[in-house]
């Protein structure tokens, strides 16, 4: 894997970079360039994004004054916090159950989690819509909460479960042996060990919920708009520089949450 290409005068800079590394850089550019241009555009004074006409925060300011966007933002944050919390509670308890107990149907449950994780958003969106209508639920906050919890759940469960798998099975037995009841053993030993994964699960769920457009599009009603849907309709109505600002903000929140979650999951690996 050692590539000792050196810069040779007259052969250009590209020749100095090993081809493998150049390829990697190009892929990263492909993944990040569109967002970089968009974020840059959100600070561009030009209304139509043609050429750089100076730095401005106008678009962020007009976001802050847009009542509809503020409402959608509040809704989004509420749904994300509620869904992430419920998914974290159910998912963590579920992961503890899957880790600690052997029961009939355990494999089936794991399989169902895996399938849910892999299934495309739109399949989940359609079936949940059918369920909610069938139950005569009013589409809005409550249905969004249930639906978002649903797609976050496998992520939390499998993340926490994977973390627990890394620990000695005898730890809970040791706690019981030393006088802890089952619940005390879980509270004092299992949950503290799983804590980084639980926190990461919450952060990832929050991000997933905040960013979701497909499921939300199907399961919310006209009176309860969330940010991605607001962006979607703004985009369809034509380019507005405020969308750049909003998209940049959303990206920044996701980015920081994901980086934090990754750090939590990997910090005690050597």
């Amino acid at each position: 894997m050692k590539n000792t290409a050196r810069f040779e005068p007259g052969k250009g800079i590209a020749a100095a970079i090993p081809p493998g590394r150049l390829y990697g850089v190009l892929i990263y550019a492909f993944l990040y360039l569109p967002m970089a241009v968009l974020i840059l555009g959100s600070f561009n004074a030009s209304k139509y994004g043609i050429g750089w006409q100076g730095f401005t925060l106008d678009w962020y300011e007009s976001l802050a004054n847009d009542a509809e966007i503020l409402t959608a933002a509040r809704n989004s944050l509420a749904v994300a916090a509620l869904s992430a919390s419920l998914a974290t509670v159910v998912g963590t308890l579920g992961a503890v159950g899957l880790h600690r107990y052997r029961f009939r149907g355990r494999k089936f449950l794991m399989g169902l989690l895996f399938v849910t994780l892999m299934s495309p958003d739109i399949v989940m969106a359609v079936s949940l819509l059918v369920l909610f209508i069938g139950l005569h639920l009013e589409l809005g906050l409550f249905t969004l909460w249930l639906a978002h919890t649903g797609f976050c759940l496998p992520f939390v469960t499998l993340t926490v479960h994977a973390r627990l798998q890394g620990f000695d099975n005898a730890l809970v037995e040791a706690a019981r042996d030393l006088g802890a009841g089952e619940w005390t053993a879980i509270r004092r030993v299992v949950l503290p060990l799983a804590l980084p994964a639980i926190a990461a699960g919450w952060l990832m769920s929050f991000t997933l919920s905040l960013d979701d457009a497909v499921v939300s599009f199907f399961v919310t009603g006209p009176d309860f708009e969330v940010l991605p849907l607001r962006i979607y309709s703004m985009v369809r109505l034509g380019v507005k520089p405020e969308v750049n600002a909003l998209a940049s903000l959303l990206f920044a929140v996701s980015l920081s949450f994901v980086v934090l979650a990754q750090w939590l999951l990997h910090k005690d690996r050597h």
Partner: protein
Amino acid sequence: MSQRPEILKTVTVGLLAGWLLSFVLAPTLLVVGLSLLSRSPAGFAGGPVTLDNYRRLADPIYLHVFAESFATAFIATLLCLLLGYPFAYGLARARPGLRPLLLTLVIVPFWTSSLVRIYAIRGLLAAKGALNNLLLAAGLIDQPVRLLYTQTAEIVGLVHVLLPFMILPLYASLEKLDPRLLEAARDLGAGPFRRFRHVVLPLTLPGVVAGCLLVFLPALGLFYVGDVLGGSRHLLVGNLLKDQFLEAQDWPFGAAASLVLIGLLLAFLALYAYAAKRIAPDDG
């Protein structure tokens, strides 16, 4: 105070199982049932059990949508695989100290809004967008080319959004690959091509299948890619579903169409299970 393990077992397992049964299994069964009914003016569905909805899927109008959407998704998946495999390989062989950073850089797009990123692609491809400006400035073209609202734009958008979904499972299986196996193959006289064909590929096949599943199915379903980049001209299966459920209100037909996706999902998962089992027969 006695703490009975049975109660905790019931609570922890019961909650998870209850949730999955109510919000995953039950709704899927409802969709299956719905697809066998027909549209009813009174409610959203009714009437006798029928296979009409499936017959209608074969109607040339819809067949065309499916064919086009499948072609788009297929090309996007193939591109992701071809671009992603060497990248994941390089990532798995990168310096250990650098790897977490490089990996996080792939994970971040995985978790950020694909709608926002599609919108960013649109900004690049627009008639007055960055790419056209760049080409004009470079003198490669004299007037803006139409990039937006083409199948190419859709494919670029899909690859941009879904590439991390291909790279991550590939990376996971490539990272597990023991380098000593390659040394052994080399020792036994296999050249680079045969090392790849007979050692690397079979051992990373589960990653390939998982990656294709995670790219192909969303590529069929991401309706806003069709809207934002494809215009109304190039519809995806996702757009069809959206129209049937939210506009035309023909739920039974929409349910039948979504069952096609569920069928594909199950087929992919069976393929994955098969590929994984070949490597580790006893891994439960």
